[in-house]
């Protein structure tokens, strides 16, 4: 908004003025009056300063001198002071429309409109591995065509002439790491090839980039992002060439890596950047020989190559490789990959905000038309006294411009506030949401919207006023206009109702989506659950002496797995026991996976008695005995795990309802299934209980067969679930402390609460639902205000006619019916236009809905009903007024 201060001022002056305003505003934010008063004061100061600046800059210039006079502004302000209701409503209406549109634009601008921060981003493509054979496998349901590339695939793609370079990276993963003697830390590490930095236009500020050797040989080189260099190495300029020893705490191994270079600040790619960047050649020739590697690839298109032609060439090269499974690749422009999913909903919301602005404009037109009728007399007098028509038009233009200016400024203030709120509630999955700001681009949009709104709303009323026939008006003798059909105004209000209906239908669809999602059965009780992710560092094998003694024995392998199992089980048990004793904690359990956080792993099983059928891929989750009780999952059949379920054969299993339904027609207890986990090893499971299906990743998913196995038989627990009787957030510190006390080798990598996890899964839907509800509500309000304004005026203007009717025997109820019928025609017309429009508009929401179709009749009925109710509420005052009319008074006027 500060650019308003630049009008007619030097940069220095504007900055000093902005500083003064800032200083004064800060002094004004007092608890007693609140920030709103200070913001309003600020907006008014800026607006007045802009007018002064404009006047100063026009002073003394002949061509424009005649066009702008302070007198017109003063006159307009005086008029507003006399009719504050009109000025306030008009400015607020404009501000609402401009504020909503501007803030939505600022979000859309940052997320999808502003170019990506790389050179020629439209020439960058992401290359996905496509593996059609995996399509039927539930484990690859969403990733079979978004797969990684292997070393030979990368080599093949680099030969393509359609790319200037094919760069690869391995997504960052976390590692428990020790630096020298220091405590174990969790750090993130990612691999990149030498081509990635040039492709993205990122510079190396110290040392060198990786080179071809680093890409193919185990050179153990490392690049540091600028932030890591500053934080961990104090920004030392002699860092290049230094060898950093990074111990891998859980495996006990170490990596010695030579720092070869430091990147420029703010390197970002594919989410949070890792702290350390390793070269990708670590596996060396082995990677090629054994078709290893798991790379993500981004390539720059060569001049003249298109995405399509490059895809054909790349598919040819990859298809020629002799691989065990059918392999292809898919090219997706990086822009689409990064922003594609976010773009559509945002365009939709932007469209919603635009509709709201349209309603606001229509409302202002209505207000100005109504105001115009009040002014016909004044304009008539001025014309009769010798005022020229251009002079009158200028006065009107100045008034409208002032209105647009006030509306824009107030809209901007509103936009700043709305945008802050939006960023606060926006789902974290929206890319670049952290860069959203109301800047000069956004301000320019607001001003343009204000100007457009002025143009749309001001022209017709000004035109009709300026054509005023002085003699005719004065002949009316100041009695004001009798009646008119107000066709234009009525059409405008009907249009408002139609647009409001579209907005309300959108709000209802998204609202129902979130309600349906929220009412999906989770399968467990999410209240007051804290989830602690842990990583066991140090040896997994317990006492090394025992192991050494056993070396060479024939059952060494079994001994090792037994040792690992007992160590891990003992650890988990100690943790669970200690945490259970914490104040406020009701129950504690361990698990290998957690709903909405980590999915259970897949396991191929054979259902006993059905040896003819192929193996089934199911999910397996390891839990401690208390898991079902802690999660609030009722055991619906059979029993849960108990201390008696010891290692051995068969193992005990509790299955999900879907598991029981799909494989045993719902009669699973006592049935068996088996898993062949090595050529000579088969584990058999016997089903002892059935628990409800549990949502795993999102609320809209279908149920999958899943079974639970006790950790006493399998180990592998790395998540701790804590159910507390108090707010889970308040227990987190105590839980961390207790874990550190029990076992210093257990590192807590993350803590969260179940409600946060679930909230995260519906964050986008909730965001859309909230925004569309706001748009719908605001549209409804504006339409109601428009209808009220029209009807109230009609009642006043038809006073005389009503008086005659009453005198001729009409009862008050007849007058009320008359007024209502008048409004019903308008509302009916609005709905008639709005329903098909909403029907068409709702089609674009289809992909974003859950549990409701865009054409669901009840949604339209409810939306129309809500609009009808709002219309009735708006009509309440005018109708009562018509009913209370005193014919004597009305006729005497």
């Amino acid at each position, binding site marked *: 908004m500060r650019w308003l201060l630049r009008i007619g001022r030097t940069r220095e002056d504007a900055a000093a*003025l902005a500083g003064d305003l800032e200083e004064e505003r800060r002094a004004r934010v007092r608890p007693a009056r609140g920030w709103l008063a200070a913001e309003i004061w600020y907006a008014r100061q800026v607006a007045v300063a802009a007018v002064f600046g404009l006047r100063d800059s026009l002073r003394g210039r002949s061509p424009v001198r005649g066009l702008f006079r302070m007198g017109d502004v003063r006159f307009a302000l005086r008029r507003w002071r006399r009719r504050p209701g009109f000025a306030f409503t008009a400015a607020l209406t404009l501000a609402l429309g401009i504020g909503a549109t501007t803030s939505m634009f600022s979000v859309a601008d940052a997320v999808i409109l502003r170019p990506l921060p790389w050179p020629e981003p439209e020439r960058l493509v992401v290359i996905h591995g496509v593996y059609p054979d995996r399509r039927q496998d539930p484990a690859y349901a969403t990733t079979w065509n978004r797969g990684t590339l292997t070393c030979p695939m990368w080599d093949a793609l680099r030969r393509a002439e359609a790319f200037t370079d094919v760069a690869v990276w391995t997504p960052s993963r976390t590692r428990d790491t020790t630096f020298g003697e220091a405590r174990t830390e969790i750090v993130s590490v990612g691999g990149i090839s030498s081509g990635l930095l040039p492709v993205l236009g990122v510079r190396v500020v110290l040392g060198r980039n990786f080179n071809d050797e680093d890409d193919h040989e185990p050179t153990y080189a490392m690049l540091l992002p600028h932030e890591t260099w500053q934080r961990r190495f104090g920004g030392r300029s002699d860092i290049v060439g230094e060898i950093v020893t990074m111990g891998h705490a859980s495996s006990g191994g170490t990596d010695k890596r030579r720092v070869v270079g430091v990147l420029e600040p703010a390197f970002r790619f594919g989410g949070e950047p890792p702290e350390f960047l390793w070269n990708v050649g670590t596996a060396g020739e082995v990677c090629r020989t054994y078709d290893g590697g798991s790379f993500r690839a981004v390539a720059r298109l060569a001049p003249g190559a298109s995405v399509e032609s490059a895809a054909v060439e790349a598919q040819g090269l990859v298809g020629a490789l002799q691989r065990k499974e059918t392999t292809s690749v898919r090219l997706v422009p990086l822009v689409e990959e990064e922003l594609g999913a976010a773009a559509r909903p945002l365009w939709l919301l932007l469209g919603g905000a635009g509709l709201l602005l349209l309603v606001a404009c229509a409302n202002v037109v209505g207000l100005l038309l109504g105001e115009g009728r009040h002014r016909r007399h004044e304009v008539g007098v001025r014309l009769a006294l010798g005022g020229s028509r251009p002079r009158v038009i200028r006065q009107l233009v100045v008034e409208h411009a002032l209105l647009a200016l006030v509306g824009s400024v107030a809209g901007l203030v509103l936009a700043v506030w709305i945008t802050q709120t939006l960023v606060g509630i926006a789902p974290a999955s929206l890319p670049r949401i952290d860069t959203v700001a109301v800047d000069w681009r956004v301000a320019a949009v607001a001003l343009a919207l204000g100007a457009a709104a002025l143009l749309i709303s001001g022209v017709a009323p000004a035109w009709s006023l300026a054509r005023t026939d002085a003699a005719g008006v004065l002949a009316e003798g100041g009695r004001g206009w009798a009646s008119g059909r107000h066709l234009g105004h009525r059409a405008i209000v009907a249009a408002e109702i139609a647009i409001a209906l579209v907005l309300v239908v959108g709000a209802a669809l998204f609202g129902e989506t979130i309600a349906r999602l929220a009412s999906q059965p989770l399968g467990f009780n999410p209240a007051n659950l804290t989830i602690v992710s842990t990583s066991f560092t140090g040896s997994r094998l317990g006492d090394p002496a025992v192991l050494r003694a056993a070396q060479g024995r024939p059952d060494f392998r079994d001994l090792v797995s037994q040792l690992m199992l007992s160590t891990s089980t003992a650890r988990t048990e100690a943790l669970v026991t200690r945490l259970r004793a914490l104040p406020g904690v009701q129950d504690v359990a361990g698990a290998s996976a957690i709903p909405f956080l980590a999915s259970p792993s897949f396991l191929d099983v054979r259902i006993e008695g059905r040896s003819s059928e192929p193996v089934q891929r199911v999910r397996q989750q390891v839990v401690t005995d208390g898991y079902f009780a802690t999660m609030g999952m009722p055991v619906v059949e059979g029993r849960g795990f108990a201390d008696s379920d010891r290692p051995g054969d068969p193992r005990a299993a509790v299955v999900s309802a879907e598991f029981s339904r799909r494989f045993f027609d719902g009669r699973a207890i006592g049935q068996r299934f088996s898993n062949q986990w090595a050529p000579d090893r088969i584990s058999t499971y016997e089903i002892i209980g059935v628990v409800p299906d549990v949502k795993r990743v999102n609320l809209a998913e279908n149920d999958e067969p899943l079974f639970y196995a006790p950790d006493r038989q399998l180990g592998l627990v790395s998540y701790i679930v804590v159910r507390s009787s108090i707010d889970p957030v308040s227990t987190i510190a105590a839980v961390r402390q207790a874990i550190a006390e029990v076992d210093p080798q257990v590192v807590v990598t993350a803590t969260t609460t179940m409600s946060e996890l679930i909230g995260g899964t519906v964050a986008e839907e909730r965001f859309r639902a909230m925004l569309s509800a706001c748009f719908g509500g605001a549209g409804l309000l504006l339409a109601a205000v428009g209808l009220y304004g029209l009807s109230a005026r009609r009642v006043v203007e038809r006073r005389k006619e009503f008086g005659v009717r009453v005198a001729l025997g009409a009862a008050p109820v007849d007058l009320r019916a008359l007024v209502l019928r008048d409004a019903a025609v308008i509302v009916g017309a609005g709905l008639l236009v709005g329903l098909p429009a909403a029907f068409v508009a709702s089609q674009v929401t289809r992909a974003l809905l859950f549990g409701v179709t865009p054409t669901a009749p009840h949604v339209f009925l409810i939306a129309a009903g809500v609009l009808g109710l709002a219309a009735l509420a708006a009509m309440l005052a005018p109708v009562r007024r018509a009913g209370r009319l005193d014919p004597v008074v009305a006729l005497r006027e």
Partner: protein
Amino acid sequence: MPAYLGEFEQLVLLALARLGDEAYGVTIRATLVERTGRRPTFGAIYSTLRRLEAKGLVRSYLGEPQAVRGGRAKKHVALTPRGRAALRDAHRAIVLMAEGVGGLR
């Protein structure tokens, strides 16, 4: 020929004379509010200062940026000798005209 001063211009010049080194937008407005009870906008004050500077009656210089001002510098304003003279003339005119007129105190 001394410069003609409008009434608001006189008030602003008086505020400058009163404030000395401390004169910039916020203090000038505070002085006007405190002494006259008026609440001029910053836009009006800046517009007047610019006019006075163009007439050579005041001069301005920039101070250091400050956090409380959103990192922006103050624009300090001071009377020039001509400004002081113009103020004196205007004041003298008022005093001479008011001399002997009753009911002004």
